């Protein structure tokens, strides 16, 4: 392992991502948590670039750092939230969960550590977006179309759910 530029880039990106995650857990204000997570999402986009997936990285930044973070912030603002009120959940549960997560991480890490895959050269970085486009519109056309249906359904569903039910509200009042 050499201290190549790629390695340095990976290490710094990974560090920022993990710090973002840890801040998510430890910050007290909800808005801060969301902002902390934006760093993680952006770092992950950088990781994608390292993995020669420029298009996915772009999508990551657009969707996660942009759209999802923003609607989450909207969600926070639209609801009343009492900040810095964490400690109510049972300590025993947290401890159990922490141990469980540790055990899980340990077990999966054993798997990762023992992973031995021969590295084969790939040409993913060449015209990445074009490759994805060809695949998406030829081989994966049906899932692609289904995704559009899903998004439509979500659009309608989200509106129906979030819409104020005027008649019922009126009845109540």
């Amino acid at each position, binding site marked *: 392992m050499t201290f190549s530029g790629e390695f340095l880039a990976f290490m710094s990106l990974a560090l920022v991502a993990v710090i973002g995650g840890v801040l998510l857990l430890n910050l007290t204000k909800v808005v801060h*948590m969301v902002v902390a997570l934006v760093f993680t999402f952006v770092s992950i986009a950088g990781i994608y670039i390292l*993995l020669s997936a420029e298009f996915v990285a772009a999508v990551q930044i657009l969707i996660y750092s942009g759209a999802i973070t923003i609607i989450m912030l909207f969600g926070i603002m639209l609801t009343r939230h009492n900040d810095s009120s964490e400690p109510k959940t049972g300590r025993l549960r947290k401890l159990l969960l922490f141990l469980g997560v540790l055990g899980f991480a340990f077990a*999966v890490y054993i798997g990762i550590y023992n*992973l031995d895959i021969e590295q084969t050269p790939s040409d993913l970085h060449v015209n990445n977006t074009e490759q994805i486009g060809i695949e998406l519109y030829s081989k994966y056309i049906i899932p692609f179309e289904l995704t559009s249906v*899903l*998004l439509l359904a979500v659009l309608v569903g989200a509106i129906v759910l979030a819409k104020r039910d005027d008649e019922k509200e009126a009845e109540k009042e």
Partner: protein
Amino acid sequence: MSAVPIQAYLALALILFCIGLYGALTKRNTVIVLISIELMLNAVNINLVAFSKFGVAPSITGQVFALFAIAVAAAEAAVGLAILIALYRNRKTINMDEMDTMKH
């Protein structure tokens, strides 16, 4: 080939996944829980993309799959927030520990 082995990417994904999991199961605020779930999905995407490059048979399919996952995650986030807002309107709270109607 590459200075960074696949194990490093997988380990990073694992760490993020665990953080997301822990957050999803401990945080009281429902928005944060949703975000934690997004984090877990991101960890999975890292895996997909990493395997698409360093897998036994490298191919673009992994990246395409990651795209689909992102689309579905976005949809999930939208619906989740819609539910959250409907719930908030009815219960006047978004605290997880006050949503205990399942025991009834």
